[in-house]
């Protein structure tokens, strides 16, 4: 069954969506979606370097993302530039640097489209096992630090004052996000990873009464988006990565319409 490219894509996509759910929630709560973008964009540079030095792409992307997130942490502590300006600077510079670097290496044939928008239909069995094993590891670590990192997300000051270890937690979280990006890049590409992280999370917000429920529902919403997006891309012959994001967007609109009408019914009765 896994011989079929479509089934492989589906299995890989579902794996990424399940991992992305809880991480997406934290990124939304921490107001870090632009940060996710910055990391993802710097992933492009990672891809280029992987081609140049003939190393594993996932590893190379993770390394670059990790370096960028540590730089960001240090620069944020410096407080010389406001965070959004800093992210704007790094995000687009990283993207441009990556594109320029690819342009320089004329001897390499890199499919820029695949890097930017994903190439899920070419996933191999090895990719799938990396997604599932790596994803499982990521979720385990996240579960382990969930309570304190959620506390620090609600209020950094409260968590600091009451004995939290926020700086280490922040660092761990950024490294985890770098890994999520590294394993999901092939699915939707560097430009759309943030969408896959945050759209399912905000789609299910109206139905969530607790942070944990929201994390689980976000994974479920991601699952639905991947299945619908990939199926429609097969039938309508549309690019698969963007189709997944469009499906997630449609899901978001429907979810919020349903929630609004439920609210109206409740207030009417």
């Amino acid at each position: 069954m896994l011989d079929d490219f479509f089934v492989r894509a589906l299995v890989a996509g579902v794996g990424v969506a399940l991992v992305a759910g809880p991480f997406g929630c934290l990124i939304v709560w921490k107001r870090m979606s632009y940060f996710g973008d910055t990391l993802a964009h710097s992933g492009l540079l990672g891809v280029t370097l992987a081609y140049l030095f003939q190393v594993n792409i996932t590893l190379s992307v993770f390394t670059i993302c990790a370096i960028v997130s540590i730089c960001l942490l240090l620069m944020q502590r410096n407080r010389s530039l406001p965070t959004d300006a800093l992210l704007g600077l790094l995000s687009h510079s990283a993207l441009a640097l990556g594109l320029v670097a690819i342009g320089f290496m004329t001897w390499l044939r890199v499919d820029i489209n695949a890097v930017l928008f994903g190439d899920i239909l070419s996933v191999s069995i090895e990719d799938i096992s990396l997604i599932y094993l790596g994803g499982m590891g990521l979720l385990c670590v996240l579960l382990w630090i969930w309570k304190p990192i959620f506390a620090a997300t609600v209020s950094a000051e409260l968590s600091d004052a009451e004995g939290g270890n926020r700086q280490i937690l922040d660092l761990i979280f950024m490294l985890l996000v770098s890994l999520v990006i590294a394993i999901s890049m092939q699915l939707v590409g560097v430009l759309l990873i943030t969408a896959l992280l945050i759209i399912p999370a905000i789609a299910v917000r109206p139905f969530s009464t607790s942070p944990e429920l929201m994390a689980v529902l976000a994974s479920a919403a991601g699952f639905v988006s991947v299945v619908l997006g990939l199926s429609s891309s097969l039938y309508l012959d549309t690019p698969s990565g963007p189709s997944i994001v469009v499906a997630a967007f449609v899901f978001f609109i429907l979810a919020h319409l349903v929630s609004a009408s439920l609210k109206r019914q409740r207030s009417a009765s």
Partner: protein
Amino acid sequence: MKTKELIRLETAGLKITGDWLVRGVTFSVAKGEIVTLIGPNGSGKSTSAKMALGILQPTEGKAWQTSGLRVGYVPQNLAIDWTMPLTVKRLITLTHKMNADEIESALERTGVSHLKNEQVQNLSGGEFQRVLLARALALKPDLLVLDEPAQGVDFNGEAALYQLISQLRDELECGVLLISHDLHMVMAATDRVICLNGHMCCHGTPMSVVQNPVYKDLFGERAASTFAVYQHQHDHVHLPDGTVQHADGSITEHCHPDDGHHHEQEGDSYVG
């Protein structure tokens, strides 16, 4: 008798992007003691408290905490985004585990146990403030740090709140660090006052501070004279649900005209 110190700042100061927010702050809070930081807006009260708590690292001077200190903190601002689903109950157990009874009794003390399962975004400012206080006391802290705890709480609630803080100090034998922009209300409950305005202006007992010329310069003659307000006794308490508890413990819908400090006679009752 030397009491056990919980936190101490020694000539601490914080500089951010070239400007000193506050400098030369020295104070300590001991077990069972209520210390109040007062000063105008931007005088470095919150900054000093944050340095003492280890939230901010002082640029100069020293911040010291006794080891294993359990802190209950009510920050001045806590904005919780709509994106975060968070019930009152969950907010209370945010940093430490506790059982249902502990949550319930803490919320009862601040009069908001009916809000237990409410989403925090649906609370009013005063309700949220009461929930934050309940959260801090539910931790059974060694040190309670309250940054403008009365914001959004109505006048009578404010009196009850400071009464509750004194009670908590006696009950938990904790130290209390209170931050306020004026001495209004907090006076009666305070052991020591530190008056800040970018640096330490004066400190001492509430009585000695209000008589200090520096304090009068900072807050005006009127602030010093309104000190009389805090020495009168209320003979009834307005409960959060709108009913009134009298000195003899009875509860009625409204307060009586002959009660001390009735609303329509507020001007007169200031005499105490």
